[in-house]
């Protein structure tokens, strides 16, 4: 039963440098802050960071799987509040969960939570799906 306040199962995704490279190629965003540690450090970042849109794509996968397919996703939004930091030779987590905000017939709004290493990386993350 889906009702306002229903909490959806948490899911953990893992990111590594290979995934960042694959996302750079798939999205066309080749900004070196997502691939080169030397460059990232030179612009004051703590290390290579994931593309905000990669984080959002993974959260989108969470939404898609829950909704029963990408065609069910009508609206999706998020604010990038902290970077997901991806050191070399490591897998870092992206832990996603959600709560039902509103149910209007088959139209369901959910509020999404996304953290990495315990730090909230997305703010105001919401999706509207038809389910």
């Amino acid at each position, binding site marked *: 039963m889906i009702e306002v306040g229903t909490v959806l199962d948490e899911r953990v995704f893992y990111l590594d440098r290979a995934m960042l490279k694959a996302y750079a190629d*798939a999205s066309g*965003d080749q900004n070196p802050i997502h691939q080169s540690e030397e460059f990232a450090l030179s612009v004051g970042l703590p290390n290579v960071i994931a593309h905000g849109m*990669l984080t959002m794509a*993974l959260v*989108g996968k969470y939404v898609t799987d829950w909704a029963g397919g*990408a065609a069910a996703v009508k609206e999706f939004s998020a604010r990038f509040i902290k970077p997901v930091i991806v050191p070399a030779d490591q897998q870092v987590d992206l832990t996603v969960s959600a709560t039902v905000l509103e149910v209007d017939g088959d139209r369901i709004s959910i509020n999404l939570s996304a953290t990495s290493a315990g730090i909230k990386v997305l703010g105001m993350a919401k999706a509207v799906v038809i389910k």
Partner: protein
Amino acid sequence: MINPDSVGRTFAGADSVTVSQSEIDAFCAVISETNTTVAPPTFSIRISLSQYESILTQPEIGVDWTRLVHGDQKFEIFRPIVAGDVFKCSATIETLRVAAGNEIISVRSDLHNGSELVVSSWSTLVVRA
């Protein structure tokens, strides 16, 4: 500095961007999506971001792409993108404000296939001081 006269204006992007199945496959592969018959919900950023870059860095608008940070993103998806979609793209600069020397612009991207609006998206882009 971004030209303040560009606020409220809509700029036409490429006349046609054709979506291929291999592009959808590559995007799906990154997020382990096995259903590749439609594009994932955030796929259109691949099109919008490159359009933004070519439009917003024109001298008459003046965005410095090397100082750009993505602040937030919203998608309204009227139907999922599929291989074979041919899009006309536009970018509308909705607002511009300056905070602590950073220029914060809100840009809207509409992807039309013929007369059909398929995806509208909004991006807040921050040009760091």
